[in-house]
Every structure is written in structure tokens, then in C-alpha cells.
């Protein structure tokens, strides 16, 4: 499903993508990047956070498209970037390379690592790499409803203590947990 969303992302706003609108997003906004492997609901979370004002453009020097949008959380306005899917900081595909370049080059206030809660064990290594890189990570356990359905019980407090980063459970299709996520972002920025 997701790859089609990705694809349509390219068309949805492509009419207004090129040129002028890019300048609307000022350079001095605080930045949030959403990272994670494909098919975990990155784009849905991105849409939940940004609503309208989305621009889609090629990442400089590549053919990979990156969506950017704005959101207001608490008192602050943020620029949100939806990165192409990545599995690890050691890239294999062009898309992964773009995602990493983005993490390296842009001064990010928050990196939201979104994972499929069911596959936490397989996806946690990327969280560890992001923490290791000293990036301001928030871990989002998405599709938590399906994890619960198959009998998974995740102790979020414990996980936060172990990883020393905020952890939030969400369901981006229904919007469950999004407010909590926003709260954690606000807290995180205030403590910076």
C-alpha cells in the first residue's frame, strides 16, 4: 500500500512543487525528520502531522523525492521531512543513501524513528544506530493495535529506561497516540 502512497505523493502536489513554494519554508525553522523502513506508516504519520502545505521535490543531486511540510506543536512551528525508507545507516539503495545524507546534513531538532511494533526486534537496530549517532531520537511503535492483537505486550516505560529516549505507541491510521507523540516532541524541544 505504502509504495503507492509514496508514488502518489509525487503527483499529489507536483503541480506546486517546483520552484517558488520551496521558499515558503524558512531555513531557520526547527526540523523534524521521520525515518524508518518502508511499510511502517511513515507517510501516514507525516500526513497526520502536517496536514496541508506539503511540498514534494527531488533531493538535491538525486532523483529521489522527499516531502516536506509544516506543523505547529505547542508554541513552535516545525518543518517536517518524510525521508525515503531506510533499514540501516549503512545504505544499500539510492533511497537509503538520501535518507542518511539528510540525517547527516540537516540540523535536526527531532528524529522520529517509526517502526512496526510487531517487528520491533528486527527494527530496533536502526534505533540503536540513531542513538549511537547522537541524534535526538524519539521511537514510535506504530501499528500497536496489530501487535496487541497477536498477543504482544510491550512495556514502554521499561523500553524508555533501557534506551534512554522517549518511546510512544501509535496507530497512524486511526490517529491513536499522535497527541502523546506531539507532547513528547514539545518536551524534548523544551529540554534542549
Amino acid at each position, binding site marked *: *500500500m505504502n*509504495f*503507492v502512497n*509514496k*508514488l*502518489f505523493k*509525487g*503527483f*499529489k502536489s507536483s503541480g506546486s512543487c517546483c520552484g517558488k513554494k520551496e521558499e515558503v519554508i524558512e531555513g531557520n525553522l526547527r526540523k523534524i525528520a521521520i525515518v524508518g*523502513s*518502508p*511499510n*511502517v506508516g511513515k507517510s501516514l504519520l507525516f500526513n497526520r502531522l502536517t496536514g496541508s502545505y506539503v511540498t514534494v521535490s527531488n533531493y538535491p543531486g538525486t*532523483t*529521489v523525492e522527499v516531502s516536506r511540510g509544516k506543523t505547529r506543536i505547542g508554541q513552535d512551528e516545525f518543518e517536517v521531512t518524510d525521508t525515503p*525508507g531506510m533499514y*540501516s*545507516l*549503512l*545504505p*544499500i*539503495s*539510492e*533511497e537509503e*543513501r538520501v535518507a542518511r545524507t539528510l*540525517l*547527516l*546534513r540537516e*540540523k535536526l531538532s527531532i528524529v522520529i524513528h517509526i517502526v*512496526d511494533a*510487531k*517487528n*520491533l*526486534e*528486527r527494527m*530496533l*537496530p536502526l*534505533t*540503536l*544506530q540513531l*542513538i*549511537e*549517532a*547522537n*541524534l535526538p531520537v524519539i521511537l514510535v511503535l506504530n501499528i500497536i493495535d*496489530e501487535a496487541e492483537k*497477536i*498477543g*504482544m*505486550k*510491550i*512495556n*514502554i516505560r*521499561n*523500553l524508555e529506561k*533501557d*534506551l*534512554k529516549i522517549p518511546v510512544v505507541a501509535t496507530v497512524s491510521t486511526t490517529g491513536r497516540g499522535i497527541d502523546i507523540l506531539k507532547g513528547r516532541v514539545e518536551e524534548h524541544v523544551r529540554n534542549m
Partner: protein
Amino acid sequence: MSEICKYTGDILEMSLEKIELLLKGDYGISKRSIGLLLLQEDEEIISLAKSKEAEKFTQIMEIVAHTKAHFHEPLSYIISQRRQEEASRIVGASVEHLPETRLPFKEKLSRMMIHPLTGVPILLLILYYGIYKFVGRFGAGIMVDFIEKDIFEKNINPWITQILTSIIPWQMLRELFVGEYGVITLGVRYAVALILPIVTTFFIAFAIIEDTGYLPRLALLIDRLFKKIGLTGRAVIPMVLGLGCDTMATMVTRTLPTKRERIIATILLALAIPCSAQLGVILSLLEGNPKGLWVWAGIVSLVFLLVGFLSSLVLPGDAPSFYMEIPPLRLPKLSNVFIKTYTRVKWYFSEIFPMFILASVCIWIGQLSGLFSLLTRALNYPIHWIGLPDKASVAFLFGFFRRDYGAAGLYDIKKAGLFTGNQLVVACVTLTLFLPCIAQFLMNVKERGWKTGLGISVFILFFSFSVGFLLNLALNILGVSL
């Protein structure tokens, strides 16, 4: 900072600490991460370090080489293994698995879809009911008939002709709107009466299939076959999307990891994957001619496999490896299906509608200036060559605009009863393989560059006619009549 991932007391950790001390530049992320990436010999990071660590760079790379020599496996493997162990430990401490209560029927079904023995029949079933019955019979048959005959031919066409006759006295100008290739009688009719119902039914079927989570399973099913032609199962997704629209699918080839795979997939998409509108029209053309349908499907699949196999031999590169997340099977949500269908149809229609109108205007100008008949006459040669009647030149000329437009042209010729069974099949095969539409050509150029994009198109032009020629020859020699 994070002591989570410290692998204390071994050579890897000691080397890492040494590298961290030597690194002086600012990388945007921690020195530890950079050190780990250097140890895993990430080319981009190595050249970055080379530019930032003037004199210490050689020393760092010596440490990397030294560390590498200590292990049998690649360092990237060892590092990710340790990281996975750490992740498993953390998950083990925080996650509890309660026994499952329900019998996992979904899981059983999911496995059946992937296993070749049960997966292939399931695939055929989905193709038969989803594509052939729903799109071919219902969309391209019943709905097209209704919109075309009952709405256009009985109501709209005579009505507009009447109005135009009373307000425009010049026959020539009237031709622009209601002539043989008029804006209303051809452009709008093709778009609304032929393409719209076909594309809509296709997108409905596709959205349902997609929403269930079937596609990644299909990818796994076909992975083995695809490996033989130099692609991974991951490439199934652009291919299946190509059945919707090859232009979008070409864009999706980006998700393929190697350049080699991306080029092979682009060629196959342009050549052997018919898009939804084309597929629908071809299904309705060959309806009532099951033998012809089999020949068409057989030839196109054969070309797909053959060209894929040959290009995997020609293009150098490693055999790809495959890894993919499998989302659970779900019952499709009506609202999802509706929204997906709506956005796609809207996008597709707004793309083709102006082009169809434009095509009518171009043809009108071409007719006035004589260019149109010149072009069709030039096309007559290759058309005769593959054993088709004159009339078909026009359809192929349409095909240069868009393959679906060309297929719709064939539909008109068939309706007029100008094709024999053999000619129909040859025309369908040739047009399926034929040059992609202008939009896809531009996308090929955008994604693959001028040289490759243009090269692919020229190759396809010759290839499609050659296959048509051979098929016609074979049918004649064997004395088969379809």
C-alpha cells in the same frame, strides 16, 4: 553518551576508540557512528573522511585494515550481528508474548499464497476474476458498450452534430469536432466511453488486491523466476503497478537497489507490460477469441522472460539479493479502496483527457496540411510487412501518442469488421510491445538519462515490429487461423 552498544574489551571496540580519538572533523553525527561506518568501509563516508582528516586519514585506514584482518567475516556482518543481539536483549526485557487465542487462519492463507504449488492457482484465480472477468468483461465489455452505444452514439453524437450543423456552415471546421477523428467523436469518446470505464474498473480491482496485502506475497512467489532474469522479487511491485500505468511504475523502479535492476525493469515496463487501459481494450478486443487471447498472453510473457534474461546477460552486475517486509493480510477497507480508486482515476483522467483532445486537434491539422496521410502512408509499409490492413496504420500512429490511444483505435477497426482473427492477434501483440506513450518516454529519460531512455525506445520500436512480423510469418507457415 550511549553505552548501550559498547562491545567492551575486544579488538573491534579498541579500534573504534582509536579511530574516534583520531577523528577531528565535524560530521553532523557522532564520531562513534562515523568510526563504525569507516570500519564497515562505507565509500561515501571514507571519501568524506579523506577530505576532512588531512594527515590522520591514512592512519585511520590502517586501523580499519588491521581490524578487518582479525575477523573471518566482513566487519559489517559482525557489527550488525552484535547490534541485533543487543536489540534482542532489550526487546526480551520489555516485551511479553501472550499465547495467541485465535487459530491463525490468516497465517495459513498467507503461506499458501507464497508457496508455488498453491500460490500459482491463487494467482490465476485472482487474475481470472479480478482482471479478466471484472475489467475485461464488465468494464471493457458491458460498461463500454453501454456508454458508447447508448450514450454516445444514440444521444450525444447526433445531438452535437445537429447543433454544429446549424451554427457552423463550414464542413472543414465541423470536421474538427464531429469528423472521423473529431474532438467529440474521437477524443472525448475514447477518453470517456472507452478508457474511463476500463481504467476505473481496473483501479477498483487493483485497490482491493493492494489493500489486502497480497502484493508483497506475490513478490515472494515470483522471486525465484525473477532472479533468473536478473531481477529480485522486489521488482514485482513496479511490474504489477505497471499494469496500472507504466509511467508511474517507471518512477517506482527507484526502489530497486542496483542500477542494473533499474535498467532491466525500465526496459521490461516499456516493452512487455501493458497498462490498464491498454490491457482492458486488448481483453475486449480478444474477447470471444480465447485461442487468440492465449497466443497474445503467451507471446507477451515469452518476450518478457526472454528480454529480461538476455538483458541480464548483457548488463554486467551482481545477482541481486532480496529482502522484504511482509505486512499482514487484511480485509480491504471500503473507504481505502474508494479513495485510492478516486485519486488514481482522477489523476489518470486529467492526464489523458487533454492529450486525447490535443491528439484530435493535431490530426485535424495534419489532415488539412496533408501530413497525416503522408505519415499513415509511410506507416503502411511496416504495417503491410506484419500483414495488417491499411486502416491499422492510423491506430499505430495513435499509438505514438499513447499506447492506450492506439489500442482504442484498434477497437474501432475491429468493430468495423476489418480484421481477421490472425490480424487481430498480430496487431494486439505488436501494439502491446510497441513504443510507450510520450509520458513514459519522458519518464524513462528523466529516470535513466537521455542515452538510455532514447536507446530503449529505438530498441522497442524495432523489436515490436520484428515480433509482429515473426508471429504473422509463423501463423501463416503453420496455417493457423485464430
